[in-house]
């Protein structure tokens, strides 16, 4: 339950993909292809994004680059936009435990914008991002002599599962524009929303202050549960950025065979909208509620969220001390009990005791995980009681 993969709809996806694979193979499937992705696939992606994000303007296929995963998209973008040692602002907790890995070629420094569990005045809920927090983090970066070049946002957020409001999104874009920062927005979970909270894609905003510095990432790994297929997409209207990224894209190409398969998948809008997304939302919702309630029964509060394949759970009261060492201890004992969940430290969370638990599993698996969790946490509960 540590790796964020959607295993809930494997049957639905596998069935649809198998039908496509049985088809004929074209010669171009085995030849060198356009590094940015074949035209027909980019056009299909452009149509797909236009529809699913309710974009203000239709997405142009010439502004789209296809690569073998969103990590590659981020790595190439970062290499082109940043010099070695440069930094980017990222609200934490965030999928940035892995971001430094993506920076192996690029050699970057994430500048955390720490969010807390306690909601302060003006904030609607815990772990909320505000512009003031961005300003504060930028100030600290300046003092440390880190040249910040961009703001990176994940919406819906990983690991929190929360969605940015339209006002907040705009506020972030305006903040970035003021400081001439690039904005990289990763909307990889945009179709993995399990309740009815409205989602505002950045592409649907009517007025983007600096379109030349806005770069959009999406991929098949989460929303289509196909992490093994290796396909991620960059959309940017900045020609110069696109040129630089396309040079690097040669090392991260999505094979033509895969592009053909996915083209056909996207083309089948009926299947996507009426079969897959409906089932996916329903099953994600069920699993989320199961996990939420199960954890509540164990006395583990969970941050209320709308999206993603996981929950953000509060294990603070099970820590022997409010430290990251204690968090690690708890994590180790859970691993020994064969329950693998991710500790908050790996997301740069500034408070020890939070864990991300992936719930995009069939119900049976969650129950087993829940039982194991119960046994372990009762042990800790007991321990905490004793020490109290």
């Amino acid at each position: 339950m540590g790796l964020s993969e959607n295993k809930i709809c494997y049957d639905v996806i596998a069935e649809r993909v198998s039908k496509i694979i049985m088809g004929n193979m074209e010669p171009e499937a085995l030849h060198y292809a356009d590094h940015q992705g074949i035209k027909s696939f980019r056009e299909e992606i452009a149509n797909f994004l236009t529809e699913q994000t309710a974009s203000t303007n239709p997405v142009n296929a010439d502004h789209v680059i296809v690569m073998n995963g969103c990590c590659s998209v981020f790595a190439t973008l970062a290499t082109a936009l940043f010099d070695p040692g440069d930094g980017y602002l990222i609200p934490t907790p965030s999928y940035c435990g892995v971001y430094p890995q993506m920076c192996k070629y690029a050699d970057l420094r994430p500048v955390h914008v720490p969010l807390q569990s306690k909601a302060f005045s003006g904030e609607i809920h815990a772990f909320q991002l505000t512009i003031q927090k961005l300003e504060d983090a930028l100030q600290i970066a300046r003092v440390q002599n880190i040249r910040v070049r961009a703001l990176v946002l994940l919406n819906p957020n990983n690991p929190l599962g929360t969605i940015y409001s339209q006002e907040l999104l705009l506020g972030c874009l305006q903040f970035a524009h003021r400081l001439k920062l690039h904005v990289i927005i990763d909307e990889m979970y945009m179709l993995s929303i399990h309740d009815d909270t409205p989602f505002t894609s950045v592409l649907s905003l009517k007025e983007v202050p600096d379109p030349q510095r806005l770069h959009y990432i999406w991929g098949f790994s989460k929303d289509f549960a196909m992490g093994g297929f290796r396909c991620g997409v960059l959309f940017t209207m900045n020609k110069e950025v696109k040129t630089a990224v396309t040079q690097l894209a040669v090392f991260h190409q999505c094979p033509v065979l895969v592009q053909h398969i996915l083209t056909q998948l996207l083309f089948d809008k009926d299947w996507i909208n009426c079969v897959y997304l409906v089932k996916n939302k329903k099953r994600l919702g069920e699993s989320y509620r199961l996990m939420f309630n199960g954890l509540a029964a164990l006395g583990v509060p969970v941050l209320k969220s709308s999206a993603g394949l996981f929950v953000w759970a509060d294990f603070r009261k099970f820590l022997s001390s409010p430290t990251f060492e204690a968090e690690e201890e708890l994590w180790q004992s859970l691993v020994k009990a064969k329950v693998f969940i991710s500790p908050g430290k790996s997301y740069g969370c500034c408070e020890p005791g939070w864990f991300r638990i992936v719930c995009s599993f069939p119900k049976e698996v969650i129950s087993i995980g829940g039982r194991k969790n119960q046994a372990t946490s009762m042990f800790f509960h007991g321990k905490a009681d004793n020490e109290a």
Partner: protein
Amino acid sequence: MEREHELRMFTVFAQMVSSLRADSSPDFGLVHGLQMADRWGEDSKLMKGKASARPPSNPSPDPDNSPERISPYLSKRGNRISNFYNIMNEGYIAYVADKYDEDKNPNGIVNLGTSENKLCFDLLSKRLTQSDMHQIDPPLLQYPDWRGHPFIREEFARFFTYYCKAPAPLKPENVIVINGGGSLFCSLAAVLCDPGDGILIATPYYGAISMHVMLYSNVRLVPVHLESRMTGSDTRPFHLTVERLEKSLQDAKMEDVRVRALILMNPHNPLADVYSPTEMKDFLEFAKRHELHVIVDEVYMLSVFEETAQYHSVLSFDRLPDPQRTHVMWALSKDFAASGIRVGSLYTENQDVLSAVAQLAFLHGVPGPTQHKVAQLLRDRDWINQTFLQTNRARLKAAHKYVTDELKELGIPFLNRHAAFFVWADFRRYLKTLSFEEELLLWRRFVNNKVLIICGKAFECCEPGWFRIIFSDKTYRLQLGMQRLQKVLKEVEQEMQSEDKLLLSQLDAECKADIVEETVLHPSSQEKAPGLDGLIGLLKRQMQSSDWLQKHTVEQFAQDNPEVFEVFSRLAGK
């Protein structure tokens, strides 16, 4: 007759000199006045003049000092990457925009430039669409081990053991599978080198490697220039020897470049040479002496279509001189004619290198379903041996014969080899002057005439005039491509002949004028001043057309006119 020839050569020479003067600053320092002009012998140094200077060792402009185009949106590194240019890209872009298609676009560009095997799609598509290929197990849809699923690494280890004829079974834990040869060069450069470091490579070489090592890691290739002219113990043109490797390494050290590795390609691209085991061992020993890593690219190892060529993989050696620094690359792109499938592998015993590359491998992932297909393919030894390899090699051999026969007809010299997909051919006689500018002009003419072949500059060849021609394509495309090449070459030949006539007639007219000094001092008085390049070319052709030089040597002149010679020597010494 001889005097006329003498006057003609001298006049051309004098025009060249004045052309140089016209371009240079006033105090050029050339001898003024007529007295010397009329009693000059030839300048033997000029006559032995080399072809234009060697190309710089990096194909791209030096970006940290003067990028061609600076974008305010990109970092310095981003601008360097954006400005990286290779002529292969230009050719490929032109081709993609105007692809030849028998029915839909018969006037499109025939691609005899990109090294792909288009001869076996029938065999491959049949095998790749069989039912055992269509498997969608859950693990294939999910994140894999970034080194490659265990099943594919086992398959690669078995495959290499058999086809490389390894003396002992090779281990799956020494294998990493990522998305293609380019990514292998890219990640190896990142883990073996630091920014600014160098990797030795013999020229001509497959030009894209510069990009692979430079883009992310800012590593440069250090060329070991090979020439077509055989000297000393050379047994073939462009002969790589340990002496040449040693010299280039020393030169690099003098320029403060830290060389970390050596790249060897066997079979070679673009020469199609197959190195003998002795040669390979010598190169590996050289590397060991200097503690250099060796990246051995064997991507064409199964595409040797003549038994007599006797190919040996380094993995077949009983003992490697430095196994911890020997890293072997192979990919499906060439030998299985599947460049679009993006699968390559690294074999090395060095666990540090493997771990480091594995860290980067998640950026170069191969899709699960593709890994399954490739493993199925590699496992099917019967199909490989009985269906695929035999037919593929026979087709390659026939296509090679077709193109080389055509080249013979045209009287174009080429390296006659029996591996890979291309022929390295000598087009020097079609260059008006032996320069890269002329080579590029010829290349552009080919492209404008809708046939793409790659010019030597793209391979960092130090001699202009060489081109690589692909033959691994269907006969009708080869036919059309060769016809289009021939058309351009005939045009060039005719132009050169009529230019010679024109220049000669101009010179004849001048010879009849009684003052040579006018030509020296007022080159602009001519209505159409021939360019310097054109004059050099004409001079050379004039030299070739008579034995005047053999008769009129510097020594002879010194003997005949000692006082004049003394004055000349003093002035020339300035």
